[in-house]
Structure formats: C-alpha cells, structure tokens
C-alpha cells in the first residue's frame, strides 16, 4: 500500500519568494556568524540563512540567528524620542532636536555643577565598531567624562584583564581553526552547546575528524560536561586552586616546556614558589577535585603535543575572574601552548561586538588598545582628533560596576545608558532600582522602548538595531565582519552613529573635530590608528571585509599591497618567540595566591546559586523574549534543583518556588534534575526581576567584573501556587 489515493495531488509548500539577500553579521553573540537576510519582491524581510562560504559558520546558524530577521517587526520597538521631567510622570513625545538639545543642556548643567565626571556613560557590546569609536571620541574628546564604560564589564572584563596581565595586551591569541589542530581541549566554565552553538559545531567537526580528549571544568553537568572525556565538577569559585594544583603537578613531574618558558616568559620562579603550596592533596580539599584526577588531567594536558584552553563566564564572572584567566594563561605558557596551531588560550567572548568595544570604544582607555595612562597614547590620539591632550584624564575612570555605587554616593548625577539594560543585567536589582531613582537625569538609548530601565529614565532615544544600519563587528577570533543595512529602522529611530554625531554637534568642542556621517568613512578614519599595532587593520575596508566574509586582524596595508591575501582563518597572535606585548616581548607568569572571600552557602542560605545562559535567549531577553520561536523553549524563569534537595524541601517538579538571598527573593519554577548537585541551584540570567534580585556580585579586584555565579540562597516552597503563577506572569510583559 503506497499512496492512499488514485491520483497524485500537487504539493503546496511554503515559498517565501525571496528575491534579494543582504549580507550581514549576526548581532547576537560574539561567534560572528555571517548571515544573509532575505527580502521578497515587496521588500518585506521574510527569512535568513547562514552564509555557506563564510569560514566562521560555514552555512550554519543557531536558533537565535535563524529567527533574527523577525527582530525588525518585533513588539516594543521605540519609534519617537520621549521625554519627561520626573520619573513617575508619564512620557511625552518630542522632536529629536528638542531631545538632543535637552540632553546636551543637562549634561553641561550637571558637569558645571558637579564636575566633569559627574555625568557617566555606560554603553554596551552591541553597537557597531564605528559607533563605539565615535562614542569614544564624543566621550573622551567632547563631553570629557572619565566615568565611561561598557556592559562588557559584566562579561569580558576578566578576560581583558587576564590577557593584559599575562601577555601585555588584550586580544585573544587563538582562532576557531585551532580545534582542527589541538590534541587536548580544556573548557573552563564554558558551555559551548548552550552559549556558542556554532563554535561547538566547529569543535565537533574537528573532533569527528580527529578525536582529541575534552576536559570540562564546570560545577554543573552541562551538555558539554556530559560529552567530555573528563568532567571536573569543581567547587564554585575555586578554579584558581585547581589551576595552581595542575601547574604544581606539571612542574613537579617535569612536564613543562622549558625551551618555550625560557624563550617567552618571565616570572617562573615566583610562580613555582606559589604553586608549591598547592599540592593536589591540599588543593582537592578546596576545589573538590580529587588528587588523582588533578594529576591525571595535568599529565594529559602537559603531555599533549598541542593543548588548547577555552573559557567563558564560569571563569570571568567570579571574584577570581581575572586570576582565573591568568591561571589558564599560566598553564598554557608553562606547557608552551600559545601561538601554535591548536595551542592557545581562547576566551570565548559574549556579545556580538564585545571585541569591538574592547578595541575601539575608549571605555578603558583610548582607541586601538591605547591606554590613558600612557602619555604617548594620549598625545597621539589628541593630535589625531584635534583635542587638547590635557583634556584627557591620565588614568582610567570607573568601571560600570563602580559607576552605580558612585551614583549611590552622589558623585554621579547623570547617566546615559546606550543599548544596555542594567535593571535586568546587574547584580542586586533592588540596589540598582534605588540607585537609578537617585539620578537627576537618565537617558536611555535603546532599540526597545519597553526595556525595563526606561522606567527610571527622563529621556528615551529610539535607536536602530542591527541590520537597520551599517558597520563592523569583531568576533571572538578577532575577525572583523560587516553588517549591511537590510531595512529602515521603525519611525523616527536613528542609528546610534547618527545620534552620537547629532549630539556632538551640540557641543562647541566638536566643531574643531571630524565626526563623519558614513560608517565607511569612520572606518577609514580608524584604520591609521591601528597601523603597526597588534590589531592592525590597515589592509581592510568595508567591501573587502564582505568579500572575504570577515577578515581576522592583524591584516596590514603592507600585506594587502604585497597581494597576500587575507587568509580564510587560522590567524594567530604571538606566533614568534618573544613577541608578547610587554616591552621585553616576554609573557608574564603571574603567581596567584588564593583568598576565598566570596559569599558561600551557610546554615541560613544553604544553597549555591549558579547562573547562566540558555541557547534560545540572548541577554536580557529584550530581543528573544518577543520571538515566539525562541521564547517558547523557556517562556518563564525556572530553576534547576536537585531532586533530592527538592524532596527534602517538599518541592515538586514544576512547582513555583521562592528563592531567597540576603538581597531579595525571586519566584521561579522548579525543574528537578540531577544536573546540579544537592547543594546548588541554577537559574538562567535572562529574566527581568528574577535571578539578579538574588545575586551579590562582589567584584573582581582587577577587572571589576561581578561574581554572578557564586551566591548563597535558601529555597522555600510556596503554598499558594496560583498567586505565585500570577506574580511570575505579571513580571513577564514579554
């Protein structure tokens, strides 16, 4: 029996009738996938697909990228500037001219009354690099506040700091192609399948061609941990102890790469002295990994010809985040695993343009990896921008996480938030609410008018999103890739670049400077600033970038002139001996003493609270929370809890429960799973008014990044499930 009918019917299938594809780079995470946005003959955007010839993603996209084209007509977008005198009043629509005049007046006013640094600017990792550069110029050269940072402090600051401490500069030295060459991969607090699925696929492809052992360090049994050859379920916040113990074994057993160490590093003696204290037996008591396994892993990694380490927020979002990065670098330096194919310390970055903001936004210094602390750098940039070098501060100002406490102290009176949502993303929401209430003037510039922080703003500026504008992103492997404009932004929304330029015009100082309108012109202005530096991109231009589906830096004008091509992938840093970014060309082996000063579970708050990402959501859900085919996989917040713990607490699978910390409480739905230990719960961080009501977020001393992933909570069952459901639902406007 075959057909079920006498004659065949025609088959109807959905045909989106796409006539035009616009090349772009995905605007979600930092993997940097090339994506094409499809339009039909009426010019309506109806589809997207991964670019087959792009080296990064080779035609693939993740669940977010596949539906990214639905962003353009998603709910909650702003289309007109809105303004009000006081929070609590209702907003009124206003013109751009009035909005920006008011904003400029308020900035001047606050700065006159309270000093230049009393107006702070917090941006993001979401803008295009040309926009970051322009915002940096506006901030450092025109407005002149030193309290300027990006939300990248919440995700990548520890990586930046760790790279700088070890290698003398930021800039991940590896590339995705390293998976194809490595003999052992160690993943520290990184859950590729959930966070960076395309990188996971690149790793999987490599692993299928040539199996290499995978070691995963994560307190939770993530998909990656489950698929690992060795899973180290480390005690939260003790990675540094494990790292020191691994180096202890490596040095103790003579497994280090002496030749590499001598040719490339300084500080071995100090490191040796410090790690001597971390014999595996003592270390195991702290980090929770038994001594035999520590030795085994140390041998496996050190004996491999090429070893590669990746890490993400499990390392960065900790009180020892920067140390954790340095620890990884230490391991790779003593085993000679930097700058060779398959041998690297590769920080897997967070936002689409976290790298761009690190390179060009002037948040932590001046553009092109320049430091405010360096007089020559100040001189060079001042000259290039036509600014008095004395106008620049001589030291970096506050990080994002210090800006909010400074508002609390009354030192900062005005704040401009660009494409970031601290109401959901910063730890201790209750404190942030109070802080925001204290501001004399808060501007929120965002694509979404319903972003939660708008509740506390005086002025909201509607911005274009992603492919409603043009410019470049830099991805995790230092690849600059281009976003082309596919459609217009809704209503009167403007690109962030246009907003910065328009605002600049309202300050006298800008008249002497150049603020190009076109992103390509901004890019050309930036290029000379990269010349001869680690991130040299003088060989690139917008069109060449698109043609090559992204180009990894460095790519110099000289290479371009010689006709050396940009390579497809696999470009690395520090490939020659003694070429690290410190003056002596040597990398530093930094000793890492361990001080445990974090919040840990106790009798009153007996559970570790761990937080993290879900594959279907991005950051604070402003985008993915509105796209049904993303949001449906986790429409409300939930909490992974061990079934044995749940039983003791009288909690059933799928009950709403109340999670309480010293900061506040949150209502989540319980998901009983052995994925987490009995003394730990896991809550995704994407949801408004949820996990960050609980987190403490003590700051890393170097990077000022909060320890999102280590707090202590207690859990209470809720008798009135209906009321809990209502409360949970009411907090989900989207």
């Amino acid at each position, binding site marked *: *029996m*075959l*057909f*079920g*009918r006498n004659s*065949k*019917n*025609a*088959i*109807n*299938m959905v045909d*989106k009738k796409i006539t035009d594809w616009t090349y772009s780079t995905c605007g979600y995470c930092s993997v940097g996938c090339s994506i094409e946005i499809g339009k039909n003959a009426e010019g309506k955007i109806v*589809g*997207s697909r991964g*670019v*087959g*010839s792009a080296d990064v993603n*080779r*035609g*693939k*996209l*993740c*669940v977010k990228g*596949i539906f990214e084209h639905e962003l353009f007509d998603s709910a909650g977008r702003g289309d007109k500037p809105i303004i009000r005198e006081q929070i609590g009043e209702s907003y009124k629509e206003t013109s751009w001219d009035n909005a920006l005049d008011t904003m400029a007046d308020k900035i001047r006013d606050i700065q006159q009354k309270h000093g230049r640094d009393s107006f702070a600017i917090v941006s993001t990792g979401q803008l295009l690099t040309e926009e970051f550069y322009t915002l940096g110029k506006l901030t450092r050269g025109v407005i002149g506040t030193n309290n300027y940072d990006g939300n990248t402090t919440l995700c990548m600051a520890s990586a930046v700091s760790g790279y700088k401490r070890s290698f003398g500069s930021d800039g991940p030295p590896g590339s995705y192609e390293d998976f194809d060459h490595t003999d052992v991969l160690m993943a520290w607090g990184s859950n590729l*399948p*959930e966070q960076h*699925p395309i990188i*996971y*696929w690149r790793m*999987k492809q490599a692993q*299928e061609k040539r199996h290499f052992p995978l070691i995963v360090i994560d307190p939770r*049994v993530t*998909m990656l*941990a*489950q*698929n690992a050859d060795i*899973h180290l*379920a480390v005690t939260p916040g003790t990675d540094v102890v494990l790292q020191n113990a691994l180096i202890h074994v490596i040095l103790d057993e003579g497994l280090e790469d002496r030749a590499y160490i001598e040719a490339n590093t300084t500080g071995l003696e100090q490191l040796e002295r410090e790690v001597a204290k971390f014999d595996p037996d003592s270390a195991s008591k702290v980090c929770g990994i038994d001594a035999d396994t520590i030795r085994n892993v140390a041998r496996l990694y050190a004996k491999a010809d090429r070893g590669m380490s990746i890490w993400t927020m499990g390392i960065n979002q900790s009180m020892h985040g920067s140390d954790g990065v340095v620890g990884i670098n230490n391991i790779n330096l003593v085993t000679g695993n930097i700058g060779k194919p398959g041998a690297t310390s590769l920080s897997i970055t967070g936002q689409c343009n976290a790298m761009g903001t690190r390179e060009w936004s002037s948040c932590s210094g001046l553009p092109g990896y320049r430091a405010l602390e360096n007089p020559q750098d100040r001189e060079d940039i001042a000259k290039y921008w036509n600014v008095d070098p004395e106008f620049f501060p001589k030291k970096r100002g506050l990080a994002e996480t210090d800006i909010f406490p400074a508002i609390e102290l009354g030192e900062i009176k005005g704040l401009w938030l660009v494409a970031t949502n601290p109401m959901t993303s910063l730890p201790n929401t209750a404190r942030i609410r109070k802080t925001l209430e204290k501001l004399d003037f808060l501007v929120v510039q965002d694509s979404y008018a319903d972003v939660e922080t708008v509740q506390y703003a005086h002025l909201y500026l509607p911005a274009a999103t992603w492919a409603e504008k043009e410019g470049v992103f830099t991805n995790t492997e230092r690849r600059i890739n281009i976003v082309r404009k596919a459609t217009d932004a809704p209503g009167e929304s403007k690109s962030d670049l246009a907003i910065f330029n328009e605002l600049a015009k309202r300050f006298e100082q800008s008249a002497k400077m150049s603020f190009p309108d076109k992103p390509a012109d901004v890019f050309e202005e930036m290029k000379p600033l990269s010349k001869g530096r680690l991130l040299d991109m003088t060989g690139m231009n917008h069109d060449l970038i698109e043609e090559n589906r992204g180009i990894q830096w460095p790519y110099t004008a000289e290479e371009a002139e010689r006709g050396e091509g940009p390579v497809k992938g696999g470009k690395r840093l520090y490939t020659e001996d003694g070429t690290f970014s410190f003056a002596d060309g040597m990398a530093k082996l930094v000793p890492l003493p361990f001080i445990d000063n974090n919040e840990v579970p106790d009798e009153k708050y007996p559970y570790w609270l761990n937080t993290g990402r879900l*594959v279907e959501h991005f950051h604070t859900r402003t985008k993915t929370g509105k796209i*049904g*085919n*993303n*949001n*449906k*996989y*986790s*429409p*409300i917040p*939930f909490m992974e809890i061990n079934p044995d713990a749940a039983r003791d607490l009288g909690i059933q*699978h*799928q009950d709403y429960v109340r999670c309480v910390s010293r900061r506040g409480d949150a209502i989540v739905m319980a*998901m009983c*799973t*052995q*994925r*987490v230990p*009995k003394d730990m719960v896991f809550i995704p961080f994407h949801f408004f008014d949820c996990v960050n009501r609980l987190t403490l977020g003590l700051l890393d001393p170097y990077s000022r990044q909060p320890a999102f992933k280590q707090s202590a909570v207690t859990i209470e069952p809720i008798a009135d499930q209906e009321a809990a*459901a209502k409360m949970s*639902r009411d907090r*989900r406007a989207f």
Partner: protein
Amino acid sequence: MLKVRSDEPEYSFLWDKETKAVNQHGNLIDLVNEDSDLHCQSLNINNDPGIGDNPNRYKQHGFFLNADNCIGCHACEAACSEKNDNPAHIAFRSVGFVEGGTYPDYQRINISMACNHCDDPVCLKGCPTRAYTKYAEYGAVLQDPDICFGCGYCTWVCPYNAPQLDPVKGQVTKCNMCVDRLEVGLKPACVSACLGNALDFGVVENIPENRIEAKISIPGFPTPDITQPNIRFQQTRSTQLEMTRTDSMPLKYQKDDSGSTFKPKVDKKHGEKKEWNWAKLLTSHESAHVIFTLSTQAVLGAFLIIVTAGLFTVDSLATLNTAAVKLPLLGIMFVMLTYGLFKLNMHLGKPHRFYRGFNNLRLSPLSREIAGVSGFYTFLMAYGFFSIFDNDIFNFLANASGALGAISGLIGLYYMYKIYRIKARPFWDHWQTGSAFFGNTISFGALLTGLISLPLLSSEHALLTLATPLMALISLGLALELIGHLVHSRAMANLENEGAASWYLQTTRYGKAWITRNVLLGLSFAFALLLLTMNPSGVAAFIGWSLLAILMISAGAISRSLFFVLVIPTTMPGAFFWKNKAFEEHARESGLVDMEQVGVVRELHGKFKLDELLETIRTTSPATLFKNIKDIVVWKKID
C-alpha cells in the same frame, strides 16, 4: 525547482552511493518498479512541473539521529519552522529529552523527532478526508491541509506526535520531508541546520559516514511495530539503568535484563494521592466526543428495540409499535442524535468541510463510522416519517428504513469502536472499548426507551409487560460494561506502557471520580437487577426508573469522560516547557497563553464558515464532483 546556491556547503548534499534492497522491517526500499507509471512524474511542488534528478528518487528515505551527539540546541526545529513559516505553537520537529543518573554521573539524551514517513502510515489510513498521500518519491508521507477538516484523528493514531493540529487554523500540518530540497539533492532543512552532527538523512538503512549503527529504537521511542517508522538511531554511549522524563508523562524507561533495550515503566510522579479533578474531567476538550458517543449509542439502542418490535412479533415489545408511543420516542431520539452529531461536527477545526468525512471509506474506520452513523441518521428520519402513516406501503417503507437503519447503525457502532482501537493509545486499544460501547448501546437504549415509553402507556399491564424485557436489557448492557471494566483494569494495571500510565492517573489524579464511577455503576447494576426481579408498578416504578436513570447517566457520563481524559498516547519525551502537557495546561490556566510568544494556544473550536461551503458548492463542477465521488467508491490498485 529550488535553486541551489553557489556556496551551498557540502554537508547539505545527500550522500547515498549504494543502497540496500530491504529495510529492517522487511519491506522493499525501492518503492515502485522501474516500469511503473509512477516513475518520472513531477511532484508538482507549487505547480512546478519539473522533475528532480535525484538518483534515489524512488527509494524510501528516512532521518538518522545520532542520539550520542544531539545537544538539544533547537537549530533543527528552528530551521524547520523558518522554512515552513510556522508560528510558535506549531512544530513539525521537536526536541525533547530523557535523563538519568545521579550528579555528577548524570546523563541527558536529547531526541529530535519529526515525521518518520512510516512504511505503514497509520495517519494516512486513519484520515477520513484522504488528506494524506504516501509518495513513490522518497516514500514521503505528505498531508494536504487544504483537504483536511481538522478532526485531529491522525494526531491520535500517530505514535510520534508528528501531525500537528493547529487550533487557530483548524487544520493539521506536518513535516513534508523538504521534498523540494530532496528534488535538487539537498538534505532537509533541519538536517542541514544540525549543530551537533546528530541529525542526518538519506536512503533508509544507509549508515552515514563516521557512524556505526542504525538501530530502530532508543529509550523513549515508541515501539516501531506500530507503524514501521523510517528513522534510524545511533546510541552507543552507555546509558544509566533508568531514564526519566522531565515532562508530565508518568513514564520512565528501564533497561531490561539484556542491558541493551529499554522498557517503559510507570513513574509515579504525582504520588499515590487520590483526587477528584471534576473540572478537568467534565470540561475537557473531548467532551464533544462524550456527548456524541453516548447519545448515538443510546439512540441506536432504542432504535434497535423499536425496529425489532416492528419487524418481529415480540409480544412484550408490542406496545412500542403503537404510534402514540413510537412517535414521541422517535422524536426525542431524533433530537438527541441531532445534538450529538452537531456537537461532533462543531468539534472539527473546519466544520463546514463535514462532507469530506466520507472520502477515505477505503481505509479509515473514521470514514466508515461517519458513513454508518450518517446512514443511521438518515434512516432514523425516514423511519420516523414513514411511521406517521399507517398503510401497507408506508409500513413496508418504515420497516425497510428500520432494517437499513439498524444495519447502518450497527456498522457505525462497530467502526465507532474500531476508531479507538489505536495501537498508539494502549488505554483504548482493548476490547473493553467495545464492551462499553455495545453495552451502553443496550443499556442506554433500553433506558431511553423505557423512560419515554413507559409513562405513555395507559395500562399497568402494558407497563409491566414492557418494563421486564427493557430492564433485562439494561441489566445485560450494564453487565457487559462491568465485565469489560474489570478485565480492562486488570490488563492496564499489568501493562508497562502508556496504558499503565493511564491506569496510574485513573487511580490517582482521577482516583475519587473513578471510584465514584465504579460505585455508581455497581449500584446501577444491582438496582437494575432489583427492579427486574421486583418489577414494580405505579409510583414505585416511576421512582425506581428515575433513580436508575440518575445512577446510570451519572456513571455513564463519568465513565465516558474518564475514557477520553485518561488516554495517554505514545509520544516522544518532551522538554520542561516545550511539548510538556502539564506546562501547556498551566499556561492555559494561568493566562500565560495570552502571550503569543509563549508558544501555547487555547483549545479552540472551529467556525462553521457557510460562505466557504457555498463557495465550494458554487465552484465545484459536476465533473469534479463525480470524480470525487468515484474516488471514494472506486479504488485503483497501485503496486
């Protein structure tokens, strides 16, 4: 034909070089002979007359899932929904998981599943409208939503939850195997999108490169015996002894003694507490079926009694043959049946397409039921009409209608029973469904007859004469039903699959309602026996019959509601939110459903679009009409 882009990556292309002849179910992989006229025909995708040049075009294809590799990233589901432009609440492919072990020795096995384009497509056989076709091309089982009237029967019979009933559009849609991509040598969109290197596709039984096995089952997958599905699995990593589901289904899977295969087992997720759950029981979405089946069975039973009284000389039933008794009885039966049919029809996603229910008489028990019951309804009306007149011709016509009505009614009843003998729904797939349906036909038929006719009788003698056989029938029907329940309970309790899970819910979540039903049914039977032996008259008879009616109707309503609400289909494991029945219910109850992006919609009833029906009538040419009717009756044999 689809245009293949110039930079299409290699992994998107089909790879089958050699193929096997026979699959693991023993069926030929070549779907038609080379000289068949089905060769070299266009699939007419969106009316494109092109013919694909895929060299394996006439071989059965299937998905391959390497469960060791699936990371649950949803890329396959997303790529599918993007291609097919599906809203959040519809998914041709879904990923769920089973998990096992104790931290940190924990394991999650993700399972990505769409349609398995089975060798024995029960959806195609079940669909009354003939919306399904199994194509010679790739063995694809495709469904045409333009034909479908949204009854959802295919979603009942499919063990894998492949057909998706969309309450918003009132129609079913499903995986189309991306035949447009296959025609140009590309794998389906979901496969090309896979980020774990878990999903693959090709001619069935071909093992992809780097893979070592092609199993026909993994834990959580329903038995392949039901439909002979065309999906193959690799699952080589050692698994925990017990794998559980995160969704609300009270089932888990345990390794059997051989250590290689998993057997389902009841997972007492909600403990052993007995509950009422009246609201869920009596207002379920299937209440239309409760009303339809019970009213049809009662009316058919009464009809059979009346017709017997008319056709044969049965003294005790003779009074039923008088117009004064018969006509009011038939009138009430007509109203009851009309109401039942109305409820059933309005339960469809597209009730104005009711006439399509006969399309698949060849294969579908549902079509046959619809035909049988429709015939019965017609003859019931005819019988009533002819019974108004008392002369030989009309008597003959009435008797003929009665006989035909009885036959078609019994056919309808038989297929009503057959409809529920679904292998993917073990709770129904038992002869008890039949004993209940036939038992209720007898008991409620007799009760209905008695309740209407007895008060109309003038003499006490007539009453006593008629009441005895009716009460005997009631007792017989109830006895049948009771025996069925007893045997069914024992059978379900001894099962280890979804049937046992239903039994668990019956004795816990609906435990109190179930006990109430048992008590009411037992009392009904005892009381019927008492009335049969006592045969009271006058006020005692009135009270007795009324009390019995209350007992029986209450028991019947609870019983039939339990029947519908308790059935648990074999389905793939869901996830925590997505494809979790309990969360869907919660979303509807808590109002989360009002946010479209939650991916849950309300259970809606279709609208009767008269204009669409009139439009169809207006635009259907007599030739098409004739062809359609011919296609129902004349079946061309193919291969």
